[in-house]
């Protein structure tokens, strides 16, 4: 440490590598602190945790006793042990006693990404509620068709305020906070949707993981999913011959599909106009007819064989995109963690230490800022593994 500080001072190492080295070392040597204690107000298992994105100050938790609480993690409420141990008690708490509170377990509690004025909870009581933090009143309620497993909002979004919700139902619903209505539904999964995650590179791209073992990518401006991850596709690093290449392009995240590419699939040709028309007329997107869903399950240009692909054996229980937007981590009820290359959609076959993962509930994964470590809750312990094999430093 001392040598690094000295080298930074003399300009021998770049300040950026200095900080990333120290972060890496500190994360590698993570231990429970003796000086900070968050006093949980929950009487059940905690299903969801999030620190707010604006100030990095307020921790929101949602628990299986249908309660949600907020803690100030910067400023302690009181001190114990000669002022050495900072105790952080909840500053806001809502539970069953609240007149509009959830009845059953809260599976997901997330902050509104723009400020700390709102937070969103999703519960097994089939409801998603939007709360005003200051008054602890429910300002919006979305009735879902089944248990809510996971909710997510895009941190990049500037033009929409959609909550993506994964429920027992096969459809992923997008709840619009601006209007208080469902903006649209995404059909494709063949079983309930355990986990939803927005892309960190495009505000329109949503990734969902279902109990059917599939991980699907959606561009919410267009109908249908445009990519299904396939665990057997793992030839990353082999540059495809130039001819094959245009086909591979079709599944790339970064490139919006051009109309020309869809003509490869002849049977879809008549539908092309129809789907594209919808894509342009954004205003009608919220009123998408339900009956159309069967036909739109397949994205133009995607082969039906790809639609059957699975990412995990069993349910996909957790998803997390790395901060640089280049990789996706998934956890499944097969107790495996997989790392996917987002551009190509290939399974990178990184071998993570095997751990028994919870299968009945969605799990929350966390990735360190430099994407070198992933934190995975494994039954009674939180394991952290270097996703190290992707980015490792001395």
């Amino acid at each position, binding site marked *: *440490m001392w040598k690094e500080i000295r080298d930074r*001072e003399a300009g021998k190492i770049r300040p950026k590598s*200095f900080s990333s080295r120290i972060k890496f*070392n500190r994360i590698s040597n993570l231990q429970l602190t003796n000086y900070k204690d968050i006093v949980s107000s929950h009487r059940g298992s905690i299903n969801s945790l999030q620190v707010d994105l604006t100030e990095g100050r307020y921790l929101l938790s949602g628990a299986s006793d249908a309660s949600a609480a907020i803690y100030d993690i*910067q400023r302690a409420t009181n001190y114990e042990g000669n002022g050495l141990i900072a105790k952080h008690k909840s500053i806001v708490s809502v539970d069953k006693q609240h007149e509009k509170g959830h009845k059953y377990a809260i599976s997901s509690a997330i902050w509104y990404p723009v400020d700390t004025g709102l937070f969103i909870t999703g519960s097994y009581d089939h409801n998603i509620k939007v709360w005003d933090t200051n008054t602890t009143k429910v300002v919006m309620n979305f009735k879902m068709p089944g248990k809510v497993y996971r909710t997510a909002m895009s941190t990049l979004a500037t033009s929409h305020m959609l909550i993506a919700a994964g429920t027992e139902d096969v459809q992923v619903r997008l709840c619009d906070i601006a209007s208080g209505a469902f903006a649209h539904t995404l059909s494709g999964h063949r079983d309930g949707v355990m986990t939803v995650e927005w892309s960190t590179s495009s505000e329109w791209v949503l990734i969902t993981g279902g109990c059917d073992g599939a991980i699907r990518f959606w561009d919410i401006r267009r109908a249908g999913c445009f990519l299904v991850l396939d665990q057997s596709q793992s030839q990353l690093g082999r*540059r495809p011959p*130039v001819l094959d290449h245009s086909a591979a392009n079709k599944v790339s995240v970064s490139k919006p599909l051009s109309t020309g590419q869809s003509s490869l699939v002849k049977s879809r040709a008549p539908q092309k106009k129809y789907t594209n028309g919808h894509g342009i007329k954004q205003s009608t997107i919220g009123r998408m007819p339900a009956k159309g869903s069967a036909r739109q399950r397949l994205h133009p240009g995607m082969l039906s064989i790809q639609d059957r692909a699975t990412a995990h054996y069993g349910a996909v229980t957790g998803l997390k995109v790395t901060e640089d937007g280049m990789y996706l981590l998934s956890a499944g009820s097969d107790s495996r963690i997989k790392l996917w290359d987002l551009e190509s959609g290939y399974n990178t076959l990184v071998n993570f230490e095997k751990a028994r993962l919870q299968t009945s509930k969605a799990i929350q994964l966390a990735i360190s800022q430099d994407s070198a470590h992933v934190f995975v809750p494994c039954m009674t312990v939180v394991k952290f593994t270097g996703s190290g094999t992707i980015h490792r430093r001395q």
Partner: protein
Amino acid sequence: MSIWNYVVSAHKPTNVTHSCVGNFTNPQELNLIIAVRHRIFFLLQRNDTNSVSFNGILRHPSLLQGLNKNKYKAMGDVSDCIGRPTDNGQIGIIDPDCRLIGLHLYDGLFKVIPFDNKGQLKQAFNIRLEELQVLDIKFLHGCSKPTIVVLYQDNKDARHVKTYEVALKEKDFVVGPWSQNNLDDGADLLIPVPPPLCGVLIIGEETIVYCNANAFKAIPIRPSITKAYGRVDADGSRYLLGDNAGLLHLLVITHEKEKVAGLKIELLGETSIASTISYLDNAFVYIGSSYGDSQLIKLNLQPDAKGSFVEVLERYVNLGPINDFCVVDLERQGQGHVVTCSGANKDGSLCIVRNGIGINEQASVELQGINGMWSLRSSTDDPFDTFLVVSFTSGTRISAMNLKDVLEETEIEGFNSQVQTLFCHDAVSNQLVQVTSSSVRLVSSTSRELRHEWNAPSGYSVNVATANATQVLLATGVGHLVYLEIGDGKLTQVKHAQLEYDISCLDINPIGENSNYSQLAAVGMWTDISVRIFLLPDLNLITKEQLGGDIIPRSVLLCSFEGISYLMCALGDGHLLNFQLNLSNGELTDRKKVSLGTQPITLHTFSTKNTTYVFAASDRPTVIYSSNKKLLYGNVILKEVIHMCPFNPAAFPDSFAIAKEGELTIGSIDDTQKLHIRSIPLGEQARCICHQEQSWTFAICSVKNQSSTDESEMHFIRLLDDQTFEFISTYRLDTFEYGCSILSCSFSDDLNVYYCVGTAYVLPEENEPTRGRILVFVVEDGKLQLIAQKETMGAVYSLNAFNGKLLAAINQKIELYKWTLREDGTRELQFECGHRGHILALYVKTRGDFIVVGDLMKSISLLIYEHEEGAIEELARDHNANWMSAVEILDDDIYLGAENNFNLLTVRKNSEGATDEERGRLEVVGEYHLGEFVNRFCHGSLVMRLPDSDVGQIPTIIFGTVNGVIGVIASLPNEQYAFLEKLQSNLRKVIKGVGGLSHEQWRSFNNEKKTAEAKNFLDGDLIESFLDLSRGKMEDISKAMGVSVEELSKRVEELTRLH
């Protein structure tokens, strides 16, 4: 100080990172281009420098290496919104055939900017690169399609090389012609070899490999880390390699046409630790260095006595990296000098940086009551001066250089030495002219006899007079102006004019084509406070300029700098007015007014080394000179000067006679420059420094590398004399013990002044030091005596004197030690109280009972020492995650910090907050992107503090950075800040950065988490560039501001006086 701060760099970065050679300005002229972080300098082969300052950070400096093939392209911003910046540094390369630019900015992405046929840049795109730990990328020469070669490290830390062809149409890579696995573990550098070989050299720590599709040649080398290379021949058969110990090697590829026979390496000699090498021509090589002085070297064919082929021709002083510095006033003049710990490893040095112009005294005599001095030659053709005429109220004394080069009193018989001399000058035809109040005497310089005399009309006496080689102009009472011309042995009164008021000063310094005859005469007037220009010989008034105010002009001077003629007019209150003068019609334009002091100024012109200077003698002597057609004012490091004259005797050429109160000094003057740097090489790296006034010493913590490759280091505490900078005492630290901090302080109940040194035991197996020491030394008879020591539980990152006690920052704790007397009369440090709760308390500053801590990663926090309880408690903190690199206390409430992403921030204590919560937060009040990594802040000023100038009231802080910048942060009053902010926003519209990078964006606070527009900081470098603008642009800005150009210039010039 205040929250409104003005940041300006006093010493620009000197840390050279890249260089290249090419013919840029002209096909016939060879140019060397060097890049110093975000600035590029074009150096022509004749040493004039032309600097192009980049408004934005130059993200891809190595682009330069390809530039000599192409015409220069200014780059725009190519940052992406996603992706993780690379750890090993950004790489930018240009295809040798100019088909595309390749950039590796983010891990796993290779950005391609193609050129079209016309050489214009087209839309850029990213290509996915599987290799994540890229060490180097280069384009291969001689490939039909652009091909890159990538040096990378895999998961098992093995290093490989791979090639890819860039398929522009498909926007992807195609696997290239060859690859090579399992190279040297230290392989770090690729050198593409140009045609006909078209391969690549892979430079490792122990081997050098030449590689291409069908050849693989390797040679072992002495273990070293190669940092830079320079190609000698256009065909790429010889390369210069510079390693981290500063050794220069020559690598030769022996080949027959395209077939490589082998590699040879030869040690040439030692240079500064090179970061870039450019082979200029004819065995001249430029070595650019980040850790030491950059050099121009010549490679000789034959080794010298020490076996070195390297001959250092020139050194270019580099202050970077400034590890630490202190501000001292060595000459007790009220002007700060900065002493920096500069350089790294073997190139470490101490640099004394001071502002102003130094005088090297050669002789001085005590003489009271001097009121005039002139130097005279013994014959018109003599290039050197012989006589020095010194005038007193009661007479005139003449001295001359005798044959032994000693100045002794003499006499010129023709001169009247019984009365005060008003003016003296050499005249044509071996004559001298002396003006006294009653007459003008023309004297032969050879026979020293009076040849002719012109007497003032009876009843009148001469008040002021001036002369040149052929003319005399004098004024007698009530406005009579008399013009005489000097002939051979004859003075002729040519013209007489009667003016309405008395004349206060005159000048006929010839600035036209004829150096002996002036067409113009400048006259300063009493009563109407004007300056007038007359045409000679007819004394026709052509210009009359009212000066305004009621202070009379005391001295006028016609002079010319860089081909521009000026009229300077010094007032009785220390102000100086200058005008541009049109020689043909006497028109005065571009009026500027500056304040140089408080006492009347007399102006003298002199020239050395073919440059003209003006010396303004007053209570604050100043040398006025011109650079880039801008007048600059350099204060001379001297107290009050009454008179000066150039005195150029053969024995001390280019000297000056300077009359001070009661003293006459003869000396020479330093090169006119703003900052003077004196570098004292140490041969080891100094890490921290402090000065002790009482013992006239400096103490430094330094590191000496045993040898270049060996990791072992020796650490010392060294004591230096503050005048000679010689080591006078050394204390060697234990093995593995590093000196971390040093302080000179005294304790309560003890009159001695001590040096306290904080150390750390850095053991190879420990991640963080767990043991350290605080050593207390006293200086006795020029020796360091260890008085006391205290073991600590970690590295002592910082030491501060605090309420007569010692405050130490030790790992995550702040600890206070008191100095107690033991029973046996010895002293020891005793722990009093502490505070924890930091990640690493790296930087600590104190003021009163307040302690400001800059944490490794938790920004700034404010602690207070409670006297009653004897405890340190946290008052407030900034909750942002800033990785600090330096902190300073501006005033009771405002604290300044510099952080890891080259930003500056100020935070304010919120003592009026309504709740505990509000009081417990430090509010961020200022944010700014400096673009420099600051290692240290220090209160102080580089310029003389003058009691009644505006600038003197502005408190300043000096900072030093890794790139060798010394900067100044000045706290401005709100009104001035608002004015300058407006000026800055107007300047942004006028001054465009190269490549169109926005200044606003560049100065925005920017870290991993956020980007915020700069607030409460102003960019002084931009504002001061106002003075370099053309008149037209100045007028545009003046119009937009609603303030006159003169006023703007005045206010900006005032600011330039801050540094």
